[in-house]
């Protein structure tokens, strides 16, 4: 019955199964325990997000020195092994940094690096800005072609070895999932409509930025691909090189080609499709600004994401304007930067 206690089964389904006389007593007890815990977990995640957002909006800003001290405290970074089951979080991996499991070591190392990236580049202390522990589960399910953020932790599949490889092999994918947490605790973007596309784009933008930062790549040297390191031999043999391409969202070498202009946006478009518009705007801005993507364009996008109250239904147009305002504010003596951001958004119809 291990698969039946997954945390995202709806509570009424769990409650019904807990009373189902066709199940064994042990099975009913397992569902009853899951049903009892499930709303608590959901409530905890929601409350944690709301408190973090409320603190940010209402409490006076801490002195810079205090923030710096707090940011130096080591984060709790843990890795769990699902052992190919669907139960989260799975078995705790003791000392993942020296584990014999390469996936565990890599997950710990890259999660640590993402935390360092956010701390050193953007002054952010973990996903919630307050030192939140970072939990990852690896080896989820069997041949599972996905990685996701479930609202409280990261989850990685091993891939089927044909279309996809182990999802932890891609540093941009790890940063993509962690960034969903940052978005949750800041703008709180919904996962549908334009806000959903922005939500996915923010994860792609910071994912690719992290991959470039990790290897010291300038915008000129970067390939702007998402997921290039997890494509398996079957996908490569068919000519695919990535999930998405920020430089050319509609390209044939993408497994999931996207629109690159706002005029191509359609209602009910999946967030992984509509994100191409904002993805391309960031890439154009970063290339125009030259150097490293995280130095100027990244700071502007981060400001656009974090500097205002939560906006679950944020539109692409409003976000574009926020980055224009951020460019003016952060780089007030350099009007060319604001002009480059403006031109990038105009190029995608915003």
């Amino acid at each position, binding site marked *: 019955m291990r698969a039946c206690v997954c945390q995202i089964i709806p509570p009424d389904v769990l409650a019904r199964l807990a009373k*189902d006389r066709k199940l064994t007593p042990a099975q009913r007890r397992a569902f009853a325990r899951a049903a009892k815990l499930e709303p608590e977990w959901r409530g905890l995640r929601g409350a944690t997000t709301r408190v973090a957002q409320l603190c940010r909006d209402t409490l006076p800003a801490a002195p810079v020195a205090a923030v710096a001290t707090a940011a130096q405290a080591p984060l709790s970074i843990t890795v769990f092994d699902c052992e190919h089951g669907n139960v989260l979080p799975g078995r705790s991996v003791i000392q993942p940094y020296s584990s014999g499991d390469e996936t565990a070591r890599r997950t710990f190392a890259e999660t640590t690096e993402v935390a360092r990236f956010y701390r050193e580049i953007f002054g952010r202390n973990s996903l919630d800005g307050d030192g939140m522990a970072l939990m990852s589960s690896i080896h989820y399910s069997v041949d599972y072609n996905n990685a996701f953020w479930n609202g409280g932790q990261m989850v990685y599949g091993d891939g089927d070895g044909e279309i996809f490889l182990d999802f932890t092999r891609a540093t941009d994918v790890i940063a993509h999932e962690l960034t969903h947490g940052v978005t949750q605790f800041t703008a709180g973007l919904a*996962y549908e409509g334009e806000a959903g596309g922005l939500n996915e784009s923010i994860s792609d933008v910071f994912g690719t930025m992290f991959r470039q930062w990790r290897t010291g790549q300038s915008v000129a040297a970067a390939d702007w691909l998402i*997921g290039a390191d997890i494509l398996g031999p079957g996908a490569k043999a068919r000519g695919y090189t990535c*999930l998405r391409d920020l430089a050319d969202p509609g390209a044939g070498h993408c497994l999931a080609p996207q629109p690159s202009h706002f005029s191509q946006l359609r209602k009910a478009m999946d967030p*992984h*499709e509509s994100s191409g518009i904002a993805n391309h705007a960031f890439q154009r801005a970063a290339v125009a600004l030259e150097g490293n993507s995280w130095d100027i364009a990244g700071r502007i996008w981060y400001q656009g994401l974090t500097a205002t109250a939560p906006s679950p239904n944020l539109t692409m147009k409003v976000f574009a304007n926020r980055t224009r305002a951020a460019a003016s504010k952060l780089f007030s003596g350099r009007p060319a930067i604001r002009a480059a951001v403006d031109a990038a958004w105009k190029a995608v119809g915003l």
Partner: protein
Amino acid sequence: MGLLHMERVGGVAGFGTTRSRIRSHGQCDLATLSRDEAQRIEALFQSQAAPPSSAADTFNLRLTRDTPAGAETVVVPESAVPSRLLACIKDELL
């Protein structure tokens, strides 16, 4: 009883988007389901017990079955579907 068609949508790779080059789908004969499986599937069609997941990059499943009134489709979280049925779903490149 007919067939139950299943398609995964979403995920970090964007399965099932209009331009996606990757599809994940399968089907099973409803007559072969256990009583528990059949009840769980019926509950998914009969109620809003399992609204689509809005957690980032998680999979949803588009379930379709034929009825006398025509095809009926619901979108539910992957976690709401019995794991034995999920094993019938295969990923493929287009």
